[in-house]
């Protein structure tokens, strides 16, 4: 900081210092927000117990809300599984006297069965959806986000909007030879690099906290592509910062790299959508 003041007469250096200060502040805000969210995160939700006995799920229909925990207790003399019809979860064999539980995150009713005994069937009905269908507007009521299942989709909107817009703004800047487009692109690339680690952190939080019911293959690709995207976004922002420092227009190689990252982001978004809404 002292060095910055000493060299304040140098306008280029002053600009770099300003950017550095902004980035530090943005990182501090992001860190503080993440800490607040982590403190705020309560497990919450209700626990539901479904007893498996005499080759039946009892009760066969259970009304749950997203964030609730559902436990299947095997009181039968045979091993059973709890397997979602839509493939979103599978308990594996639950031996007699053992239990299996999961955090319910779906927003739609899920029918399930026992794999070794396909005649054993059950359904998890989503309370919010049921209430909305009854027209009481329960789903429209605002409540502050507390779970990763709420944070991740909120944050993902920023990531999904900022980077493609940064790319588009740079392309328009080149076409119309307007510097203001390039300035906007730089800021958006910076915001995307700051917010995307938080989006990824919320995703990992979801995975580690009740994400066992998510489709295994999809989640593996989604989580690692998301983690890699954080690195790519940071590289892109640094690259973009160097271009901005020269006050020039981005090169074709930068735009090509940005286009590849945008395509990866589109694919990543489609995987997320598939998990949230099915095929």
């Amino acid at each position: 900081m002292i060095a910055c003041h000493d060299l304040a007469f140098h306008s280029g250096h002053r600009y770099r210092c300003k950017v550095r200060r902004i980035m530090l502040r943005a990182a501090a805000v992001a860190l503080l927000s993440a800490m607040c969210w982590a403190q705020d995160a309560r497990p919450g939700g209700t626990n539901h117990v479904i007893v498996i006995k005499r080759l039946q799920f009892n009760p066969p229909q259970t009304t749950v809300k997203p964030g609730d925990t559902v436990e299947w207790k095997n009181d039968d003399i045979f091993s059973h599984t709890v397997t979602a019809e839509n493939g979103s979860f599978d308990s594996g064999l639950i031996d007699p006297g053992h239990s299996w539980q999961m955090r319910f995150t779906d927003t739609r009713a899920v029918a399930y069965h026992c794999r070794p005994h396909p005649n054993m069937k059950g359904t998890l009905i989503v309370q919010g959806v049921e209430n909305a269908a009854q027209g009481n507007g329960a789903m429209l009521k605002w409540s502050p986000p507390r779970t990763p299942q709420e944070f991740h989709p909120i944050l993902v909107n920023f990531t999904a909007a900022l980077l493609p817009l940064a790319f588009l703004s740079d392309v328009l800047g080149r076409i119309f030879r307007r510097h203001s487009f390039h300035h906007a692109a730089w800021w958006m690339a910076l915001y995307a690099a700051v917010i995307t680690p938080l989006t990824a952190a919320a995703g990992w939080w979801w995975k580690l906290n009740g994400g066992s019911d998510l489709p295994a293959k999809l989640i593996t690709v989604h989580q690692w592509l998301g983690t890699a995207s954080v690195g790519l976004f940071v590289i892109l922002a640094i690259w973009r910062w160097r271009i901005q420092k020269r006050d020039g227009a981005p090169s074709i190689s930068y735009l090509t790299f940005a286009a590849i990252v945008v395509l990866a982001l589109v694919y990543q978004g489609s995987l997320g959508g598939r998990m949230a809404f099915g095929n």
Partner: protein
Amino acid sequence: MRIRKYYFAVFTSAVLIATGSVTAHAQAPTDPQIAGIVQTANQIDINQAKLALKRTSNPQVKEFANQMISDHTNLEKSVNDLAKKLGVTPEDSPTSKQLKQQAAEETKKLTSLHGEAFDKEYASHEVAFHQAVIEAAKTTLIPNAKNAELKSALEGAAPLLQGHLEHAQQLEQTLGSK
């Protein structure tokens, strides 16, 4: 499909004729004979599943065979515990003898097969076997059981057999579509 119908007919005839449901002069099975029939059917399915585990390399067939061993071993244990509690000693009967004879023929046939042919034969046999046992339990064993607890236990086993039948049908369909 034709093979499955053939097996179903053979097994059902064997079980029904031997239990006397289609022969007016034959006597209905007693409770010890019913316990013996259930024990025999359990043992047959366990032995054939063990054979399948030795001969197959298909993971779905292995999973099914493991399930048959686990479920029928648990069922056998519960039948034995109940028989002991009721003071019933399982007895041989024409049905159990006929079941054993049919099983020996099927085992001989399965032993001569390999690979996909074995898997398909085993799946078809399991479908037919469970269909026949469900039919026999419904029409002969449950109506003739004198002891209320034995009758209730047989009724309680019906969903298990139905579950095995549906699983075997799924397996047969998967193997047939390959």
